[in-house]
């Protein structure tokens, strides 16, 4: 059946929407600027979105189960500041404890996860609307940052702590110079890989999709949706902590504003990456594509020396466009199902024009 082929095509296209967009973006930018497609940029694109990327992972997890976590941006600053306070000397804005990295990193990861636990419990136990809970948490955590370290940045961390954020794996000779390949890039890619494995090859991951796709059905299948949702919030918090580690390590500083106003980009990137707002759809590879696209667009707009005054507008339009595609994708798949269902009934066949309503 011919239109069946067409469907397959469209399905495949929808499933890989993000990569097509990326390809287009790369082509456009390469045409507009010969500088774009240089190894410098390609090495640069990932680290500039590395921290964001970790948040995207957390966000995607929650969104796959049909929830939001907007608090993660403050969580980044929160965990980073905790680490900063414990690591830095007092004249560098810390508490002067100068605890070893090996102790501090677990602590910050724990703190991040703890925030996740609170979010999760509020959402699952008290049934507070997940969106607003996390918004409130966003305010509270930012407030807490200012409380624990009034208006000072902590800086000068041990190299072991910074390695993840600013370390170099190896150098690539290019046009006589040496381009260093950053650890963070590899790290975020690996994390995405792990996330992908979890969502694809672990039962927990599949249960996430089940809960997001149809909570009742999932519960009927014996999946404890509350447990799943709680867990994804914890994971989201954990990822936020990792992001905090990455970004503070990269800047060698934890500022009170670290992570402020990131969440919008994170949401945008995840949605562009095909993580559907209605839950149960999208995969981590797509989300990674979303991250890359976000980096590519940023770099590209920079390369073309776009007036910074225009960036907001462009991002807004881009996001609108992305949601539009997402909406159509879902709607198309839906109509597909309806038509398929119709195509095997005998009733009313004589009116050919009604085959697809």
């Amino acid at each position: 059946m011919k239109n069946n082929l067409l469907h397959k095509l469209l399905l495949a296209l929808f499933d890989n929407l993000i990569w097509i967009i990326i390809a287009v973006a790369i082509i456009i930018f390469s045409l507009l600027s010969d500088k774009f497609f240089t190894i410098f940029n390609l090495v640069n694109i990932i680290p500039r979105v590395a921290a964001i990327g970790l948040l995207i992972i957390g966000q995607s997890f929650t969104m796959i189960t049909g929830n939001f976590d907007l608090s993660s941006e403050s969580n980044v600053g929160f965990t980073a500041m905790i680490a900063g306070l414990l690591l830095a000397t007092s004249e560098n804005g810390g508490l002067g404890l100068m605890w070893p990295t090996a102790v501090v990193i677990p602590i910050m990861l724990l703190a991040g996860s703890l925030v996740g636990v609170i979010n999760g419990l509020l959402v699952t136990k008290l049934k507070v609307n997940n969106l607003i809970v996390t918004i409130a948490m966003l305010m509270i955590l930012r407030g807490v940052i200012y409380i624990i370290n009034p208006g000072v940045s902590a800086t000068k961390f041990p190299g072991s702590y910074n390695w993840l954020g600013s370390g170099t794996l190896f150098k690539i000779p290019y046009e006589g110079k040496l381009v260093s390949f950053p650890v963070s890039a590899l790290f975020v890619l690996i994390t995405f890989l792990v996330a992908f494995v979890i969502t694809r090859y672990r039962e927990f991951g599949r249960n996430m999709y089940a809960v997001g796709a149809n909570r009742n059905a999932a519960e009927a299948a014996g999946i404890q949706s509350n447990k799943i949702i709680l867990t994804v919030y914890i994971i989201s918090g954990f990822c936020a902590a990792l992001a905090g580690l990455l970004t503070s390590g990269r800047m060698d500083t934890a500022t009170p504003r670290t992570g402020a106003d990131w969440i919008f980009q994170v949401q945008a990137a995840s949605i562009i990456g095909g993580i559907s707002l209605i839950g149960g759809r999208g995969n981590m590879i797509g989300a990674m594509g979303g991250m890359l696209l976000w980096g590519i667009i940023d770099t590209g707009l920079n390369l073309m020396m776009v007036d910074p005054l225009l960036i907001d507008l462009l991002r807004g339009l881009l996001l609108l466009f992305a949601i539009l595609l997402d909406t159509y994708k879902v709607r198309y798949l839906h109509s597909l199902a309806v038509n398929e269902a119709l195509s095997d009934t005998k009733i009313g066949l004589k009116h050919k024009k009604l085959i697809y309503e």
Partner: protein
Amino acid sequence: MLLNKNDFRRIILDQFLWIIIAVIFITFSLWIGFDRFLSGTNIINILLHSTVLGILVIGQSICLLSKNFDLSAEGTVSLVTVIAAFLMVPTSSFGGGGGYEISPFIVIPLMLVIGTIAGFINGRLITKLRMNNFIVTLSMQLVLRGLSYIISGGLQIDNPPAAFNWLGTGTVGPIPFAIIFTPMLFILINWYLKNSYFGRQLYAVGSNSEAANASGFNSGRVVTIAYMISGFMAALAGWMLLGRVQSSYSKLGAGFTLETVAASVIGGISLQGGLGSLGGAFAGVMLLSVVDNGLNLMDVNPFWVNGIRGLIILLALVIDSQKMRYKLKVTPQSQPQTQE
């Protein structure tokens, strides 16, 4: 018997906010001292806090009643203020306007129209294209603010003409006009929603859009109108705000969104739609104003303010959620939905 008990619970829950406000009020009075906290000026100040936020909350609440978010309002505020200032203010040495010096009596209607149009676009994107209201309005916020950046070129435009400012700074005798205007607006619109065709539609669509449609309402249109009202209110708020701070810049109004949602929810406007009243929402606004004012009067460490506000909001949310669960308890059929 059972129902009566529930009714009793409902009454307690609905009035809970006033209890909280009372408690906070008393605490502050004791802490700060009655002479300072309860002085005439300070009461006026508390009300002044609530004016601009209040107008935005009206719009937000109406959207929430229709079971939608409007996160774009603050973008609208930024855009209309910048446009207005740009059109009215003469070019000057520093961050002047466009030099058109158009009369406020043309500019003000223009602002309101622009705001309404922005709302209309939101509404259409959401109802016709069935896009997620949260993200649509979020990105609209960026688009609108982006436009205002382009118009203002990032610069600041000061001193709109006096004729423009009366909404923000005008006074009736000793009393600022704004603190009469906003409550009046609340009372008026609240009354209107209760007694008007649109109000009925709004509540019906918000609580059960399918049934509303089956009863002959056009939920799409209702939602769109709700967004247009919200846009109009945003423009109104922009007018008042610009009149008060007397300088416009693209960041003006930034951060209002969360506060409006918070105030409405605290005021008992449920995120599940169709539940709550503007009266409650006003209480929510008052709560925030009292808290802000109190935090300003006590010399609490400036770094603590945000944390405390966040906590209060969270508290209010928990109350709201309990209200929802109670509502679900009464209806055996509907399964609890934790997200849209």
